């Protein structure tokens, strides 16, 4: 566990000294210090902070020692680091340009295309102003040193993108046949969301484990002992080119350091997981609103304990599981409630904020009630991460039964692209048990492609497909 712990180190955020623990990311240190707003948005200069806390939402981009657009949630604090907010004048906490948020009609695209800006003279004037006050960060200063290097090419049999439950299940299956596997994981630890879910799951009884966490830990242990598996942590798989057998990976080392590695595999398994379905209510973007998986990382891995109440949004299985986790940790919470996706009450309609969340407005059958909250956690559910399968050429289809867009695949997790398989939540979010079994099936299909149609592999795969129930 990364669990930040003493000794303390200090760094600067917008010229203010902040104390962090060793092992803290910039984001976890700022939240622990009670700093929620760490940047401003592109157009309206709305407050931005930590939202996904796992690297994909890019809501927490900051300038570090002169380097712009550094994700605060993935970057470890170093002693005396100078961190600055972006798109904020003069700083993130008080930004004079946030006046733009109050003038929606001026900045609406529809107004721009239809209204006064049709005038070329006016537009050329306006575009100059827009160029000045919008954009992502400032151009890096000349004295900034970058250290990028190449780690060359890794030749392997199977490359798995994503070290969550299904990616690990696939790797574990493949390794039993002495076939080489590389796992590319975006975070510092394997196990994905399952590792952060210690609550009992009845579906997992069939696998002789109590909780997703237990299953993830079992897999991590088995994999760490296996010489056929290579794990690359803190890495972004940025491009998959199946025809050329190329997977481009960027390994993050620090805010200005990184390496490139090219992975040439016979089979690629896309187990990139899923992204949270965002909230549907007014001010659904303000700091303090944080997604399910990231919130689990924040309180369990980074030991940032909420000082106030937590409002859980989403009362399907995900909200319920978060509720049970918070109960077990003695964190005070409200909910789970729905949001304006539905008419079912109570539902969250608006979040009010200043420096941080002030309150949430819940609509009940008999009126509106204000509730206090420090964090509003979005646990509505997940939608498959489509981009890697998508640009590898796998068509995206809509699964009517699940109500999700998924990469096109069959029951063996094969896609129309011969050497690309999809699995786990990427192939449709259906809970831990199915993610695990789908991982095993993808692993077995990869084995079929590498070892040929071996009888034992094929029959085991049929067995696994049956245990998924209904294919």
């Amino acid at each position: 566990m990364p669990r930040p712990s003493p000794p303390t180190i200090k760094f600067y955020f917008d010229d203010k000294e902040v104390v962090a623990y060793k092992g803290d990311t910039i984001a976890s240190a700022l939240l622990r210090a009670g700093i929620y707003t760490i940047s401003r948005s592109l157009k309206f200069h709305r407050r931005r902070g930590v939202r996904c806390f796992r690297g994909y939402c890019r809501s927490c981009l900051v300038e570090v020692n002169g380097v712009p657009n550094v994700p605060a949630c993935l970057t470890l604090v170093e002693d005396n680091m100078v961190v600055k907010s972006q798109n904020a004048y003069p700083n993130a906490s008080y930004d004079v340009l946030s006046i733009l948020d109050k003038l929606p009609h001026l900045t609406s695209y529809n107004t721009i295309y239809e209204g006064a800006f049709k005038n070329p003279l006016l537009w050329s004037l306006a575009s100059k102003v827009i160029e000045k006050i919008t954009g992502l960060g400032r151009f890096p200063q000349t004295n900034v040193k970058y250290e990028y290097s190449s780690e060359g090419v890794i030749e392997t049999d199977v490359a798995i993108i994503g070290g969550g439950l299904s990616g690990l299940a696939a790797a574990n299956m493949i390794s039993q046949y002495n076939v080489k596997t590389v796992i590319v994981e975006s975070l510092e630890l394997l196990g994905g969301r399952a590792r952060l879910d210690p609550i009992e799951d009845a579906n997992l009884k069939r696998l002789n484990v109590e909780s997703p966490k237990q299953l993830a830990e079992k897999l991590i242990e088995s994999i760490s002992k296996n010489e056929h598996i290579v794990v690359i942590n803190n890495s972004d798989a940025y491009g998959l080119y199946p025809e050329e057998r190329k997977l481009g990976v960027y390994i993050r080392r620090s805010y200005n350091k990184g390496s490139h590695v090219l992975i040439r595999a016979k089979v690629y398994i896309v187990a990139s997981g899923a992204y949270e379905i965002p909230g549907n209510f007014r001010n659904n973007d303000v700091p303090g609103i944080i997604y399910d998986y990231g919130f689990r990382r924040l309180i369990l891995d980074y030991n940032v304990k909420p000082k106030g109440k937590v409002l859980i949004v989403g009362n399907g299985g995900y909200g319920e599981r978060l509720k049970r986790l918070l109960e077990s940790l003695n964190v005070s919470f409200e909910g789970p409630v729905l949001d304006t996706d539905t008419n079912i009450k109570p539902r969250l309609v608006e979040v009010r904020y200043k420096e941080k969340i002030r309150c949430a407005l819940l609509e009940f059958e008999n009126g509106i009630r204000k509730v206090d909250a420090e964090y509003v956690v979005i646990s509505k559910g997940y939608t498959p991460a489509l981009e890697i399968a998508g640009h590898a050429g796998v068509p995206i289809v809509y699964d009517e039964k699940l109500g999700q867009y998924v990469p096109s695949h069959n029951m063996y997790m094969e896609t129309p692209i011969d050497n690309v398989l999809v699995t786990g939540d990427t192939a449709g979010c259906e809970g831990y048990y199915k993610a695990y079994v789908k991982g095993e099936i993808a692993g077995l299909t990869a084995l079929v492609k590498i070892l040929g149609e071996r009888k034992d592999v094929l029959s085991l795969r049929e067995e696994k497909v049956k245990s998924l129930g209904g294919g």
Partner: protein
Amino acid sequence: MVKFSGKNILCFCEDVTVEEFLEAVEKYGIKDLQLLKRLLGIGTGPCQGKQCIVRAALLLALKKGIKPSNVRLTTFRPPSRPIPLGVLIHGELGEE
């Protein structure tokens, strides 16, 4: 009575509101997500549509009364995650 205020944001990176998106769909009659992306900028920010494209597709289907399967999602292009440009030069070197 409580008066509601504040924006319901669809694209968090490019600051596009749900209201603005629906206006483009209803007032201008655009039902192609690719066109909406080019008009409004949804999905073109640092998160590359990870938070908005699916939500936009479902919203479009709902407003137009069509099946989500008939909405074509925007094209996925690498890099799927923002990476420093400087590191890409090592991608080619790595092949030698």
